[in-house]
């Protein structure tokens, strides 16, 4: 098995430990990575998608073409990359006029969008191609006795029509839950499970309102699940939950801290990766969680 790893801006520059986690976990499970050399920003929502549809889809199509030329699907750990690329692909595959325009833009650089590669989110790819059992068999460390709260992330779910890997019901998602259970953990439900974390455009536009959302979520999961760890399916959610808690503590909005990891970081750790390399940039105290897991 081989895939094209689409790194994305935030993972490459803000949380390269997450990038390293992907580079550890997928090969450990027998999935070879291609670097998609020359990849760019997806592009993210506040840039070309806010200017015009053709420019958005042309930059997306160039990234998709890099994977098509190698006959590979694209795999990412960032919800925004996943959404932007999958929506661009959906538009291109359903609008022949747009596809023609975009391919005119790509002709200048000697590339063409065909529509042959799929866009996948890492844990959905693993669920679909390997399944929870194959992951369970490969683990060095298990999470028996640990409780996890989830942050699936908006873009892993909606709009469902543009995604190749489907949830049966996007308002009752199961994939991230089952992938965490495969590691041995207990996953708790909380009322605000599906709420948005407030990262991204909202945090750029109004940090106070953005933190209001993350506070509501944190309080809900603390009261209803009291987890040992929060696991996200998206790199933006990871950034928000990992960095916002110290501000909320300072403002006396919360009196607790929940350590946060992206699913691919947790998976890499359970497969035996070096914690400094795959989780070393966390601001929340993931180290004590990891130490407890490795002592069990």
């Amino acid at each position, binding site marked *: 098995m081989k895939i094209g790893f689409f790194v994305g801006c935030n993972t490459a520059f803000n949380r390269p430990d997450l990038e390293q986690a992907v580079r550890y976990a997928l090969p450990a499970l027998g999935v070879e990575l291609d670097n998609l050399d020359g990849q760019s*920003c997806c592009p*993210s929502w506040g840039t070309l998608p806010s200017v015009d*549809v053709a420019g958005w889809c042309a930059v997306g199509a160039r990234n998709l073409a890099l994977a098509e030329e190698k006959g590979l699907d694209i795999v990412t750990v960032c919800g925004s990359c996943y959404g932007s690329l999958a929506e661009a692909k959906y538009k291109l595959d359903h609008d022949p006029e747009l596809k023609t325009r975009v391919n005119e833009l790509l002709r200048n650089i000697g590339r063409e969008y065909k529509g042959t590669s799929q866009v996948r989110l890492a844990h959905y790819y693993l669920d679909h191609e390997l399944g929870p059992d194959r992951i369970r068999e490969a683990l060095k460390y298990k999470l028996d006795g640990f409780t996890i709260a989830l942050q699936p992330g908006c873009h892993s*779910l909606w709009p469902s029509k543009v995604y190749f890997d489907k949830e049966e019901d996007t308002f009752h998602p199961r994939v991230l839950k089952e992938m965490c259970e495969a590691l041995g953990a207990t996953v708790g439900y909380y009322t605000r499970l599906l709420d948005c974390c*407030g990262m991204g*455009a909202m945090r750029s536009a109004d940090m106070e309102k953005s933190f209001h959302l993350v506070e509501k979520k944190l309080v809900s999961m603390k009261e209803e699940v009291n987890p040992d760890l929060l696991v996200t399916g998206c790199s933006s959610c990871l950034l928000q939950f990992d960095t916002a808690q110290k501000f909320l503590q300072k403002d006396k909005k919360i009196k607790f801290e929940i350590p946060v990891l992206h699913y691919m970081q947790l998976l890499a750790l359970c497969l035996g990766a070096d914690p400094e390399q795959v989780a*070393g*940039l966390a601001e929340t105290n993931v180290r004590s969680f990891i130490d407890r897991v490795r002592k069990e």
Partner: protein
Amino acid sequence: MSEMQAVTGVVNLSAGDPALAGEIRELGGAELLECIQCAKCAAACPMVLAGFSFFNKKVIHAILLGLREELLDDSSIWACQSCNRCTEVCPREVNPFEVVQAMRRVAIREFALPTLSVEGLKSLYDTGHAVYLAGAGNTRAKVGLPEKPPSTVASKKALQELQTIIRNSALADLGIIPMGETGVSETCEV
């Protein structure tokens, strides 16, 4: 109550700009007129939960009334998370997210965009990444990775390809950012 107070907040329907709806439909919000203002999109919207003054349903309503200035004066559309809950639940397949994006496209054509968006576009053009941290090489090395990811920041040819696309896109006609031959240098975190 004085006469002035009595009309505060009242929308003058005949003062609206009837061309706005057409612009929105041209710029990606093709299904705008399907909206019946049922508010399922608003019930699902994180911007409502966070307390923004304009959100999907209200943006659509204001567009249909032609309230161009009111929409341009409010920056709420730039806080949309593109989460697409609205697209998922809309019973009329209006794709409210795409209408909000189209309103951003109208605003950009009137240069009514936040500084952070200008910086994001500039960073995308200059480096190939909307979010770029010039000092990330050290952090990457710390976790055992090469200083540069395998992207446009590591390949001049790839960056030139991206810049060629952008120079031939609608952004080039708007003159919002300078588009010369550039190298990768400054940090941009949006």
